[in-house]
């Protein structure tokens, strides 16, 4: 690794002075510059690209809003760009690393208070440093019958994941849909409460999202217009019953019929949770490695795939859902769901008692039950010491859309000698198709293949009308560039807001392709 760069256009003397002032705000321990090991933890070691291109110059970790305001004042004074992270564990999308080398990471992990849990109205208010694990433990230790909706990794931040429009697996799986109320610090230090929170003695701050007039919460997600310091999230009341299930399907092209069958079940909420249709290798790789079935080069051949599927008693597609509610309701819903999926030849049905000792079923069952865990990281052993970037286009919930996406993404991967490792997450009216591009962390040639493949996938998806919902640091500009209808009208709106709220361009430059004026001009 090369030495860490200074922020662009900032002299060593000015940077040292800025660091001294920030140190004066947070204390010596929390201005991280000389502690190489600690500073390295802010690098994107998961990246297939050049990690020096996103290396921070330092990190600063305030403990409260007052310290955030003081840090922002220093940043404005010296024109130091900051890169805001919550828990900074968003590996696969960049971790804690900034989009641009030299930024100072504004690490909010010390702001880790659970401000409120309201049992009556089923919500929590959290600071940025609260992880899913911590919120879950907080509820469990107090025997509060409310469930969080965790993203797959337990160390992910509740606020950060919601702000990045991440998803989970319970009926509250679309996280931004169940967000209500924000506190945001603007670049000039102004603290803003959104929605009902801006009324005097606000009694519905975390109950009614919209308030009066323009509703602005959305502009602070996947963006760089402010620093979110509190967020309300609705929690799912524990249902009287819970039964996770899995349905396996034998053929690759079954994804068409599966998706057609799921759509009415989802829209009518007979399947209430954020259900997933998981591809063969994603399902298998938590438990086995590729080398156990195939030691040749390139894509795993069909014969080996079928052997692996048979050994593990899984399908080419594996649908996960859950029943929630009193037994009569679950029994009734299951009859409808089973009857629907039985139309697919070879469909097989499993409950928890049928999959004892199955690590893949176990972690999915936990996620759909609101229990955070870390099992999914096992996927990265597919090739040995692995890493990943995710390509995640949106799709309508149609068989044609699913099959078209699956075919072109699988075939493109195979042209590059890369296994298709994907899943479809079905939301309210959409599907997130997540393609996990796993690569060997210590193989530079393999990383180059993945980078080239990613570029081709973006171009191909765009030409077919599919946009990505979220992406890694290295691809933010490229994906942003695909949202270009009417001469970049949406991008120009974002730039106008950026220039108005952050004229010095100190907050997360380049986040989601939104650059401050000085960087655009350069």
């Amino acid at each position, binding site marked *: 690794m090369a030495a860490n760069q200074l922020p662009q256009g900032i002299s060593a003397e000015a940077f040292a002075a800025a660091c001294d002032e920030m140190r004066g705000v947070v204390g010596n321990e929390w201005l991280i510059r000389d*502690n*190489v*090991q*600690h500073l*390295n*933890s802010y690098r994107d070691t998961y990246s297939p690209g050049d990690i020096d291109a996103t290396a921070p110059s330092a990190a600063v970790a305030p403990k409260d809003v007052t310290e955030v305001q003081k840090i922002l004042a220093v940043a404005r004074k010296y024109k130091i760009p900051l890169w805001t992270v919550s828990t900074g*564990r968003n*590996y696969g999308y960049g971790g804690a690393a900034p989009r641009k080398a030299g930024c100072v990471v504004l690490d909010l992990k010390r702001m880790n208070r659970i401000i409120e849990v309201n049992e009556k109205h089923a919500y929590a208010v959290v600071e940025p440093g609260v992880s899913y*694990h911590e919120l879950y433990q907080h509820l469990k230790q107090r025997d509060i019958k409310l469930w969080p909706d965790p993203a797959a990794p*337990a*160390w992910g931040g509740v606020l950060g994941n919601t702000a990045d429009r991440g998803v989970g697996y319970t009926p509250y799986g679309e996280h931004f849909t169940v967000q209500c109320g924000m506190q945001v610090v603007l670049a000039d230090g102004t603290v803003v409460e959104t929605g009902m929170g801006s009324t005097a003695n606000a009694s519905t701050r975390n109950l009614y999202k919209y308030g009066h007039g323009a509703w602005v919460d959305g502009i602070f997600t996947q963006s760089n217009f402010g620093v979110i310091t509190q967020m309300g999230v609705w929690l799912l009341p524990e249902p009287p019953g819970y039964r996770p299930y899995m349905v396996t399907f034998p053929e690759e092209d079954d994804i068409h019929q599966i998706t057609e069958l799921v759509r009415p079940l989802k829209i009518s909420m007979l399947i209430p949770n954020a259900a997933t249709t998981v591809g063969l290798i994603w399902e298998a790789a*938590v438990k*086995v*490695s590729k*080398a*156990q079935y195939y*030691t040749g080069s390139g894509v795993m051949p069909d014969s080996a795939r079928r052997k692996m599927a048979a050994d593990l008693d899984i399908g080419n597609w594996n649908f996960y859902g859950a029943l929630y509610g009193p037994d009569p309701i679950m029994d009734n819903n299951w009859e409808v769901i089973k009857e629907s999926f039985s139309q697919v030849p070879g469909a097989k049905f499993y409950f928890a008692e049928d999959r004892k*000792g199955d*690590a893949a079923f*176990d*972690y999915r069952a*936990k996620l759909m039950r609101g229990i*955070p*865990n*870390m*099992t999914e*990281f*096992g*996927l*990265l*052993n597919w090739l*040995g*010491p*692995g890493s990943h970037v995710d390509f995640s286009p949106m799709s309508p919930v149609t068989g044609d859309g699913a099959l078209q996406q699956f075919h072109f993404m699988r075939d493109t991967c195979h042209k590059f000698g890369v296994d298709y490792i994907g899943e479809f997450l079905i939301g309210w009216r959409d599907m997130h198709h997540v393609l996990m591009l796993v690569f060997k*962390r210590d193989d530079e040639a393999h990383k180059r293949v993945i980078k080239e493949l990613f570029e081709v996938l973006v171009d191909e998806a765009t030409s077919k009308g599919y946009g990505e919902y979220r992406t890694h640091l290295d691809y933010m500009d490229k994906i942003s560039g695909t949202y270009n209808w009417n001469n970049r009208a949406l991008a120009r709106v974002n730039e106008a807001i950026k220039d108005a709220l952050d004229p010095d361009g100190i907050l997360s430059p380049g986040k989601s392709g939104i650059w401050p004026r000085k960087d655009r001009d350069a």
Partner: protein
Amino acid sequence: MSTRRGFLASTLAVTTVPLVARAGVLSDAPMVRIITESTCADTLRFAARFGIHSSVVGGDPAEYLFDLERDLRDHKIDLVYGLSRASTQFLVEQTALPHGYQFGYQGQHRYIKQRLLHSLSGTRESIDIVAGRLEWHTRPWAVELADALGVLGSSVAPTQHSEVSAASVIPKDSSRHLVSWLLRPVA
């Protein structure tokens, strides 16, 4: 060279198993966190060397990772080492880095065409110790590795690389690829 004289706890990826310290533990012994998994015969042999005989099937690192972070933050651990899948090593590394830890030794252990290849990184001294054990072993290699790691406490950042290989039958349950490591705080 420090010796493995005490244990705070030991962990399987699937369950936390309190470890009874061996006889002769000294009060000022370095506190060592050992992390392994019940994924295959090799890791179970490694675990058994430390008195762990559990083989609960599962595999959620969340069951120990947050406790590890708390103990690292509270300076309750001097060394962390283990034998595991690579993903587990990554999680432990990312947990330990912010607390000033870095690798003093790393090994990759791969079954390739009826051979077992060990790729080692560390100081010359640490490589000699580990390689010597793995090259001339009479007991299962994971047992030799467990004993070797116990004497690497004074290692510094990896500076040398070495490979050792031997003919080997591939265990039926093997993932074909494991990693071993030692993390220590930077002075």
